[in-house]
């Protein structure tokens, strides 16, 4: 057993923490959110230079072979700064799916530029009315000779606007789940773009009889790879939430020490001290769960998914507790757009709506509850 980071990992953590502190202040973050989405941002290019875009991929596909701990370090630092870059949605998830399914021609065309920071992608797996079930897919793909025709709709696709292409799951005539890559602008596609409640760029993607050559089919049976990638995404989101929880707790503590009422700092009131301790407890227990999740990625699928479901459910509840208390202890201030902690609170609450909420994951754990 060893909870220590390697020297390289400590360096990664320091570099990234400094980068986020320097380049993603609240004002800079606002400007980044308001900037046009298409071109890779300056920050994304810096990520590329630092090797962050190669980090989570195996050497076999041209990556740096980083493990779950590396991913955790990166995500936690991004979460701390609420960095508005689609590291998971635009890089890790679609990239890992490509790594698992694409042939070498497809990898050269789509994966290599992704790792170089030349383009970003999006993964469209979620459908209306299916809640968090990645396999309740009604988008259909039918093969005519050497061409595929796709019809359906995907909801809340993150990074839709900036993506050069979309990885889309669709039900095949075989009954299996297939995976396709659709370049932006393919005829028959329409996009409804919006922001999520926590300021992430997203949109709905409608496919109206989209015709694709066979080379755009990445897999005719993507189920197993999709399960792997969703597990990876969930672990990454837990680490991201830890970063945001840390910052929400720090900001709240600082506020309690600074703000005075009745002639005393709020931090001197015992009711609030205990509340702050509860927040801290939630953070530390969640941190443990996130470590568990990120270090489980190389376990057999069943065991991995059990632990990651547990972590995602646990972190979901903690994230909300911390968010609600952060607002409450800031009083009216915590309700305002101007107050930074409000943005952390929004991110932490909406965390539960990405890749399955606590109820969804509790059910997984409950179904497999080990009684031994």
């Amino acid at each position, binding site marked *: 057993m060893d909870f220590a980071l390697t020297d390289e990992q400590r360096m990664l953590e320091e570099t990234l923490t400094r980068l986020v502190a320097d380049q993603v202040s609240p004002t800079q973050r606002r400007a980044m959110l308001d900037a046009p989405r298409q071109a890779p941002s300056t920050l994304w290019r810096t990520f590329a230079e630092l090797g962050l875009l190669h980090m989570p991929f195996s050497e076999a596909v041209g990556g740096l072979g980083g493990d779950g701990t590396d991913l955790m370090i990166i995500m936690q630092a991004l979460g701390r700064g609420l960095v508005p870059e689609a590291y998971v949605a635009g890089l890790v998830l679609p990239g890992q799916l490509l790594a698992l399914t694409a042939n070498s021609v497809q990898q050269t065309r789509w994966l290599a530029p992704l790792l170089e920071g030349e383009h970003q992608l999006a993964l469209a797996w979620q459908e209306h009315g299916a809640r968090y079930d990645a396999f309740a897919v009604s988008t259909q793909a039918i093969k005519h000779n050497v061409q595929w025709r796709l019809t359906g709709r995907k909801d809340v696709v993150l990074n839709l606007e900036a993506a050069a292409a979309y990885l889309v799951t669709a039900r095949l005539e075989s009954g299996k789940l297939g995976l396709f890559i659709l370049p932006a602008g393919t005829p028959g596609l329409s996009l409804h773009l919006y922001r999520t409640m926590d300021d992430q760029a997203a949109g709905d993607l409608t496919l109206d009889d989209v015709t694709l050559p066979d080379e755009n089919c990445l897999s005719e049976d993507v189920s197993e790879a999709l399960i792997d990638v969703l597990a990876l995404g969930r672990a990454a989101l837990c680490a991201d939430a830890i970063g945001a929880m840390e910052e929400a707790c720090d900001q709240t503590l600082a506020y309690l020490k600074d703000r005075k009422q009745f002639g005393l700092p709020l931090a001197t009131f015992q009711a609030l001290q205990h509340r702050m301790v509860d927040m801290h407890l939630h953070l530390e227990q969640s941190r443990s769960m996130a470590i568990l999740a990120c270090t489980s990625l190389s376990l057999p699928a069943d065991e991995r998914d059990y632990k990651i479901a547990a972590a995602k459910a646990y972190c979901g509840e903690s994230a909300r507790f911390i968010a609600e208390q952060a607002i409450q202890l800031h009083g009216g201030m915590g309700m305002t757009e101007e107050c930074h902690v409000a943005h952390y609170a929004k991110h932490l609450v909406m965390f539960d709506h990405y890749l399955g909420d606590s109820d969804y994951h509790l*059910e997984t754990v409950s179904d497999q509850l080990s009684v031994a």
Partner: protein
Amino acid sequence: MNLTFSPEEQAFRAQVRRFLADALPGDIRERVRLGRHLRADDHLRWQNILSAQGWLAANWPTEHGGPGWGPVERHIFDEECAAAHAPTVVPFGVNMVAPVIMKFGSPEQQQHYLPRILSNQDWWCQGYSEPGAGSDLAGLNTRAVREGDHYIVNGQKTWTTLGQHANMLFCLVRTNPDAKKQAGISFLLIDMQSPGITVRPIITLDGAHEVNEVFLDNVRVPVENRVGEEGQGWTCAKFLLTHERTGIAGLGHAKQALRHLKSLASRIEHRGKPLLALPSFRLRVVKAELELMALEVTNLRVIAATRDGGAPGAESSLLKVRGSELRQELSELTRRALGPAALPFFPDFLHGDAPLDDANAQSASASAQYFNRRKLSIYGGANEIQKSIVAKTILEM
């Protein structure tokens, strides 16, 4: 003991329901139902309809033009209004400053202001909180200095709800900096059009413009706009706060939210079954149901105790704590029920007039409302402060 409503009370409920069905404009009902922000004109249109019916000032006595309802009728009225998606009456005039003017105001003030409130001529806002005086309201710093027959007011108020629409401000100011904290405060009625007043919006985390900062820079206020004696402001303020807290449990809203949640969760599917059948989710809905049942009876107990007049005491703090927690939990469950559909945020639809397709429109407000409802445990005396009141006055700790 008997917890049923009398036949007269049931008939009253039917009458209110019929009125709401006939009189509430469809577009306003739809805006409320979808959780969209109401424009000033929406509020006014509805309040004028209520005024014409004689039901705007639900808690006023008949001598001032109220309907003469008791607490049970008011409770029924609130509940039916929430169920019908009627806008909540903007409380600052009718429910807050009016009782203060009735109790402490001069006959001239009563004759001038009360009819104007009843006819929606004046839109009032509440100037209590300041940047440095929230929970510690008595620590307020806005200064009023007497100069002949005027006060010169300097300072800043904040969190002023709907101040952007208001033409009148009731305001706590410090008239005597040397007296004990509470004793140096006076209650002034200030015309928002007076030179020296600036209103600046505060945007809340749900993207709404609901609250404001109000700056007062050498504002001249006639002495006759003071309610009660100089230094009696704190008495007025405390009297008003008890009125602010009647109906504070928000039972009608909670009931409506629970109804909506149950209907939503039985329509939404989770792995081929209604979400409401998922044990972890169902249990939370069941617990909310129990909390609501208990709160309803607790509320009726408080109501019964005050039936013969008199504002409720520290019991209203209990109602506020539980009521706000319950409404927050319901907003949490509603957001959660929607799953990924709770993610998209459409501020131009929610806070403006932009159109939106029906599917998105139905779920658009859930997350924004969840965040907006955080205010319920902060304003009107934060829940921590309410608990301190209960500890001190009921438990004598």
